[in-house]
């Protein structure tokens, strides 16, 4: 009896110190989401689901989730059922290498099997391979709506990139891209988001560049946009030529950025200035 009591006491002491340890870790973590670089008004806008304009896209995405599409005449919900259960944690894990998805009735493997895809890419794979429907255009309201609806299901979860060894070379490539200078201004991502984060670029605070809230409703865009759009925006900003929408370099960079933000809380769909 006493041994059991002592055991329980020890267990609770260990538990307490573990909690204290993780709390201290969170306190000492120099990383923070772009959410904390915004003023109180914008934070309130993001936090109120009836004021956050991204929720309009989520609402549209929820309708699309149930809508049958393509020659397979299937809706997302026909395979994945209730997104609140099945899509939980997905946005916190992607980009990832999807399982090879030969379409129904065809034995050919998906064209780029073995390549990592981001959430938008995965949704389009489902569309072309499973629903037999044309892929959605990048940044189209339908694709953004579905992505936002899926991303919402991971809100509040820690970013947890997949521990797939096949991803390592892509992630390394992404890290190289992050650190390499490019464009007429000869800047790397790191020059702003590591060396000068928290300082001002004209009137705007330079964020640390953690992809915690994508897709984001960016007030400057007056619409929802993907991480890819944000990256293109940065490339143009450093006067480099934006890569084509289907360039695998985006996914490599996204993989690295998600790894860099590992453990941070996802707050998608976010509002950003």
């Amino acid at each position, binding site marked *: 009896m006493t041994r059991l009591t002592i055991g329980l006491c020890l267990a609770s002491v260990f538990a307490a110190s573990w909690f204290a340890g993780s709390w201290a870790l969170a306190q000492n973590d120099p990383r923070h989401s772009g959410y904390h670089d915004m003023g109180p008004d914008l934070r309130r806008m993001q936090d109120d689901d*009836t*004021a956050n304009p991204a929720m*309009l896209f989520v*609402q549209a995405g929820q309708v699309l989730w149930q809508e049958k599409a393509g020659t397979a005449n299937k809706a997302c919900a026909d395979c994945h059922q209730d997104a609140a259960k099945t899509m939980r944690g997905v946005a916190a894990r992607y980009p990832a290498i999807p399982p090879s998805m030969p379409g129904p009735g065809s034995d050919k493997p998906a064209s780029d099997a073995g390549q990592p895809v981001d959430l938008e890419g995965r949704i389009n794979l489902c569309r072309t391979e499973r629903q037999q429907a044309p892929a959605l255009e990048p940044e189209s309201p339908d694709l953004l709506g579905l992505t936002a609806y899926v991303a919402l299901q991971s809100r509040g979860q820690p970013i947890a990139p997949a521990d797939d060894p096949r991803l390592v070379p892509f992630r390394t490539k992404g890290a190289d891209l992050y650190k390499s200078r490019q464009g007429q201004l000869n800047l790397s991502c790191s020059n702003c988001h590591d060396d000068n984060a928290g300082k001002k670029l004209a009137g705007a605070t330079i964020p640390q560049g953690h992809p915690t809230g994508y897709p984001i409703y960016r007030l400057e865009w*007056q*619409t929802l946009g993907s991480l890819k759009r944000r990256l293109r925006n940065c490339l143009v900003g450093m006067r480099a030529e934006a890569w084509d929408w289907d360039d695998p370099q985006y996914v490599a960079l996204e993989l690295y950025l998600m790894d860099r933000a590992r453990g941070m809380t996802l707050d998608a769909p976010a509002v950003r200035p």
Partner: protein
Amino acid sequence: MANVLVNAPKTARRGETVEIKALIMHPMETGFRAGTNGRIIPRNIIEHFTATWNGAEIFRMDFSPAIAANPFVSFFTVASESGTIALRWTGDEGFVAEHQVAITVT
């Protein structure tokens, strides 16, 4: 069907001040911008917004091209009687959107 998000209390006490928040998906195209082909994109905005409580007007607003896309409107009113709050947006290109919420006043 227009995409609308409305936040209004379901219940209120008589005489209580209630806040009604309405968000609607709309491009609010100003009519001053040129498209990729160099031609002006025709103006496409919401022009009027009205709110009625059991048919009686409680709030009205005219929009201008300077208002951002997906406009958000928040206003206050005094709860009078149980019934329906009806919101209506109208605008260019025959745009009409309506949304109703029920409210119980005790």
